[in-house]
């Protein structure tokens, strides 16, 4: 084990997988300079045949990812901000998500799309979206939301080695967060949630960037006598229903915290699963702490007003336990 920063863990995963398999290639806008830091040093080590800057043309980049994957490469496409996924959406939704089925399983699509998501840094409406609900709904993509450096490394390595397209969503502005990362070869399987904190009174499902405020809220709640069990799904597709449901059966209360907009979201989906599979265990309604159906504002105070925060998590959890 060693303490590493989130962005460093991602960088290590890329280095290791490119060393391990010469078919791994990386491309995207500004990947050579590595503005997020995650692709730093790859050009010097592997050269422009394996990592390359592209024009700003997401529709073509997503199409290139599909074409290169079908012809035998393991593709890492860096989309920079997740809002830029929208410009590439045709090849993502109509090719990447569907070609495996449409070819009767004849083609494999080892594609990993990296994109930074979320607000909190005044990057404004067009650079702050959290688009995982959209991707979850396409029916052919894995959706990964690593919250810790260890999971970032393990899930990215797993994705690069996979046979199906995966979206690896990095929490923007969290690159400096550090945590323990196991030494040596390390992968994290898809569809296996982590119990980030064990507790007895309430289950809080924390998605991606929300793990950090949820864990600090849990610490605060502990001091008021409320014991919180925190579940980090780590991957939203596939989703580890079982771990979530088992926890709710134990605690009888559930809350989901997510930075994506609430409507038709991961949070509403998980709430539906809990209602379906743990209904008789529930002692209170299922609550969602999410972002309202608005665009992310630019002003820091307005942004804070919209994003879920520790105080809100504490307040909602307390109310639930008092129910």
């Amino acid at each position, binding site marked *: 084990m060693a303490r590493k920063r989130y962005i460093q863990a991602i960088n290590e995963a890329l280095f290791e997988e490119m060393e391990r398999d010469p078919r791994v290639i990386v491309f995207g806008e500004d990947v050579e300079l590595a503005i997020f830091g995650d692709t730093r040093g790859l050009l010097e080590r592997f050269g422009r045949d394996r990592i390359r800057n592209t024009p700003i043309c997401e*529709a073509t980049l997503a199409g290139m990812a599909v074409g290169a994957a079908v012809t035998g490469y393991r593709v890492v496409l860096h989309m920079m901000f997740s809002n830029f996924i929208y410009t590439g959406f045709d090849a993502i939704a109509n090719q990447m998500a569907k070609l495996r089925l449409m070819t009767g399983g004849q083609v494999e699509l080892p594609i990993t799309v990296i994109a930074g998501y979320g607000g909190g840094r005044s990057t404004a409406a067009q650079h702050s979206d959290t688009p995982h609900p959209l991707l979850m709904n396409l*029916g052919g993509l894995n959706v990964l939301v690593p919250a810790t450096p260890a999971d970032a490394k393990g899930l990215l390595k797993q994705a690069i080695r996979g*046979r*199906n397209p995966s979206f690896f969503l990095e929490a923007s502005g969290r690159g400096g967060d550090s945590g323990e990362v196991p030494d040596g070869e390390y992968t994290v399987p898809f569809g296996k949630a982590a119990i980030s904190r064990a507790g007895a009174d309430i289950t809080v499902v924390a998605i991606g960037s929300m793990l950090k405020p949820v864990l600090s809220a849990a610490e605060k709640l502990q001091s008021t006598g409320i014991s919180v069990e925190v579940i980090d799904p780590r991957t939203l597709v*596939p989703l580890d229903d079982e771990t979530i449901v088992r926890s709710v059966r134990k605690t009888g209360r559930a809350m989901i915290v997510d930075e994506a907009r609430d409507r038709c979201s991961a949070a509403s989906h998980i709430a539906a699963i809990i209602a379906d599979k743990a209904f008789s265990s529930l002692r209170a309604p299922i609550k969602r702490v999410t972002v309202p159906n608005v665009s992310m504002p630019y002003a820091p105070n307005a942004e804070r007003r919209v994003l879920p925060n520790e105080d809100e998590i504490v307040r909602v959890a307390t109310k639930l336990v008092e129910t």
Partner: protein
Amino acid sequence: MTFFGDGAANQGVFMECLNVSTLWQLPLVFVCEYNHFCEFTPTATVTAGEIADRARAFKIPCEVVDGNDVMAVRSAAAKAVEWARSGKGPAFIEAQTYRIQGHLESEDLFLAGGKYREKQEIDEWRKLDPISHFGQFLVSKGVCTTSQLDSISTKIAGVVEDAVRFAEASEPADSELTFDVMFAG
């Protein structure tokens, strides 16, 4: 080689691909099958300028050919492929043709009397059908006889009919495949 139509050439991604393939000198041949319709809209009513000019703007070698002339297409393709193979970057072919059939086979049903072209226009282009024209060319060059061509047509029609019978007599798709094929690990 990548094939697309005059309709697709109005998508922005077309320009992106011209740019990337020229930038990286990819061994790529663009083939625009210019059939004069974008689904149910005549291309001329929704297209500014010449499509080949869009490729010329990137200094991609371009050839506009009669897409109904098999030998002309062959010759243009041979040149384009040679260029692409030589490592000089992409080449572009615009093959002028006409879509005799509908955008889909059952379009008369749902167009419900509405029309986007004249029957006379279709009839004119039918006379230029590339397959029958090429047949006449082969006969005129003494490569084969009309009766040989007829027997090939009869034989191929039989193969197609057999395939249709086989498909109709077969079990429908295994619906479980929908689940097995996705996320197989």
